[in-house]
């Protein structure tokens, strides 16, 4: 049986997220894009609005949404500004390993900390030499009595260095490659610190840092799962993250398309609104087609997750398709706006800059195609 309507509850949460994006994100988006500052108060506002840690169960202090509903919320937040949405998405990314692999005790302890007040979380996997090839992580974790000692440098970490809790992937056995990777819960404190802050093309409200692990001592009970399970935990986390990227991409594309429709109806050239020219109208039609398809795709992938069904392939497909759509749509929206679209005074050039990262992070779209290709040819 197919069912395409949202439940009353989902619609209500969608509305809350939409209004939050409209009132608390949009008015600040241009300023934080320009200054590249981190919007400190935003996290507190999102916390008060009940939008942080959306799919963490209520028993651990989260919002208790199913994953599909959380993605719907994510679309609305990115509709407001993908940079702001990234701050909360990085919280999800950083805390999901605990949800996936944590013991009852670990979940209670760490979500207790994360959900009791406005907090940040981060996931630290990528390294200068380990981007798409996550298996070649160089950071090490060496057992020392009832502690592990972590060393290494992580890069391109959203919320990195600022986070109250970071899930860090490091090798406990270099000879085993991906099977030697382990995941650790690392609270803010001694041994973990932010390196340089990256200057980025887009999503500039989100802070991206290097994370430096310098003889960082974490208690052995902070190991998630067992030694050697890190890669599996990372991949399961990324499956979810990829669907979130899909929903965020749809949010950006939708915001951009709405702006283009408004503009095309008002802008008069050759004696009529440019919306009446086929070259423009068909561009808008293509945007609407692609956004519709993209939304169905992320919703399907998220729905599979809620049913407990495998969704690795669908997550990769959704991430690739939705982010490619966002890039095409936002590029065309700048085109519809013409000279005005190229100016920073209008929001649309920012949409284009923000869209681009979605083709890169959480596994480049090339890696997604590799994942999909391998699954369908195995």
């Amino acid at each position: 049986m197919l069912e395409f309507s949202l439940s009353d509850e989902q619609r209500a949460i969608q509305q809350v997220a939409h209004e939050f994006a409209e009132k608390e994100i949009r008015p600040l988006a241009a300023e934080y894009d320009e200054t590249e500052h981190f919007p400190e108060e935003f996290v507190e506002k999102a916390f008060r609005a009940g939008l942080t840690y959306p799919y963490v169960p209520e028993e651990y202090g989260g919002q208790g949404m199913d994953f599909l509903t959380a993605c719907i919320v994510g679309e609305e937040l990115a509709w407001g500004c993908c940079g702001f949405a990234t701050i909360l998405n990085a919280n999800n990314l950083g805390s999901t390993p605990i949800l996936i692999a944590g013991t009852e005790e670990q979940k209670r302890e760490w979500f207790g900390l994360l959900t009791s007040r406005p907090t940040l979380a981060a996931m630290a996997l990528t390294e200068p030499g380990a981007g798409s090839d996550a298996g070649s992580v160089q950071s090490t974790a060496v057992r020392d009595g009832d502690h592990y000692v972590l060393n290494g440098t992580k890069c391109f970490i959203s919320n990195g260095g600022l986070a109250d809790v970071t899930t860090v992937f490091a090798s406990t056995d270099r000879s085993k490659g991906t099977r030697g990777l382990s995941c650790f819960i690392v609270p803010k404190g001694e041994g973990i610190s932010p390196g340089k802050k990256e200057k980025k093309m887009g999503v500039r409200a989100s802070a991206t840092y290097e994370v430096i692990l310098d003889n960082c001592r974490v208690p052995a009970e902070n190991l998630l799962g067992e030694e050697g399970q890190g890669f599996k935990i990372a991949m399961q986390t990324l499956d979810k993250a990829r669907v979130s990227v899909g929903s965020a991409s749809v949010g950006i594309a939708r915001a951009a398309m709405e702006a283009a429709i408004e503009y095309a109806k008002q802008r008069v050239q050759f004696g009529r609104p440019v919306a009446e020219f086929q070259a423009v109208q068909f561009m808008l039609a293509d945007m609407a087609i692609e956004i519709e398809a993209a939304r169905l795709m992320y919703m399907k992938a998220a729905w599979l997750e809620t049913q407990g069904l495998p969704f690795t392939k669908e997550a990769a497909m959704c991430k690739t398709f939705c982010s490619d759509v966002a890039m095409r749509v936002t590029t065309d929206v700048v085109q519809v706006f013409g000279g005005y679209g190229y100016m920073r005074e209008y929001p649309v050039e920012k949409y284009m800059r923000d869209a681009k990262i979605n083709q890169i992070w959480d596994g480049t779209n090339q890696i997604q195609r590799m994942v999909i290709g391998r699954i369908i040819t195995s």
Partner: protein
Amino acid sequence: MDFELSPEQKAWFKEVKEFAAKEIAPYTEEYDRESKFYWEGWKKIAALGLIGLPFPEEYGGSGASALDTAIAHDAFGAGGGDAGLALSWGASGIIGAVPIWMMGTEEQKKKYLPGICSGELISCFGLTEPDAGSDAASVQTTAVRKGDEYILNGTKMFITNGPIADLSVVIAVTDKEKGANGGISAFIVEKDFEGFAVGKHLDKMGNRTSPTSELIFSDCRVPAENLLGQEGYGFYQVAKATLEWERAIMVAPAVGGMEANIERCIQYAKERKQFGQPIARFQAVAFKLAEMKCLLDTSRLLVYRVAWMKDQGMEAMMEASVCKLWVTESAFKVACEAVQIFGGYGYTREYPVERTLRDTKLGLIGGGTSEIQRMIISRMLLGKF
């Protein structure tokens, strides 16, 4: 047919490419970030004689062919030369100067061209208005003859070099009833003329080293001798004289820009190791490079063809539109792929590929959007029916 550049032309390309790589490229990141015009770089390109290339020697130029001029713009981009500076160079030396060269009186040419060629004067071209973008013929700025002056009123929008220009070639309506059929004229307006002002400085996505602003005319008094070309026909004459130059020569830096991006990607793809081997070994990456090279070669041929046609005295309106559309869209595609090949590093502002993505997008908008080029090409193909 002959597709080989002469030894002199090859040496010329190499010289300009090396100049851009050494003297210009190292400064672009900083000036882009702060959205500043690189005056030192401007003086250097002027000193090398680049700005005056196509103009006759008697007006301070070098009398170079259109092809040699195109080669210089191309080579500048190939050396990683700043796209914003190249844009300002084209705005002053092509669209701000070719109309004076082609249509100006002897006095006008003597007065303005030597300064433009030497870089001491910066020119610009004022056509676009807030409500006249693609629909260029619907300009609202007016010029009314009063004794031996014209009084100009109106606002020009998105004017490259606006904030730094000493003079501008301005399009204004002299007879509203006649409109595009004998009612739109061209003027040379100096920055010190009474009633002229530079409007707000516009903050752009890319080409940030090239300043852009509004030009505001409030009862601006322009001496009658600064009328450029025939009254009522200036717009038509300027378009005829300049568009082919604009659509081929001004996009030539984007051709070189593709070459620079491809070189960056080749180097990166060979060095960057993932899954135990250089990513250049993966077809997904290697084939992107092949695609980028096809876009580069076709683009370069289209630019050189229009330049060659200009040198033969041929009309090249269709070829110029084909060239402008193909080159700018190719350059943008190449830049997008370059960012993708560089991955996370490509998204940071530390590497130049990020800037090229922002810079190349302008090509699809300025100087007649891609849509306008498609309109021109399709109309010429279809003719009257």
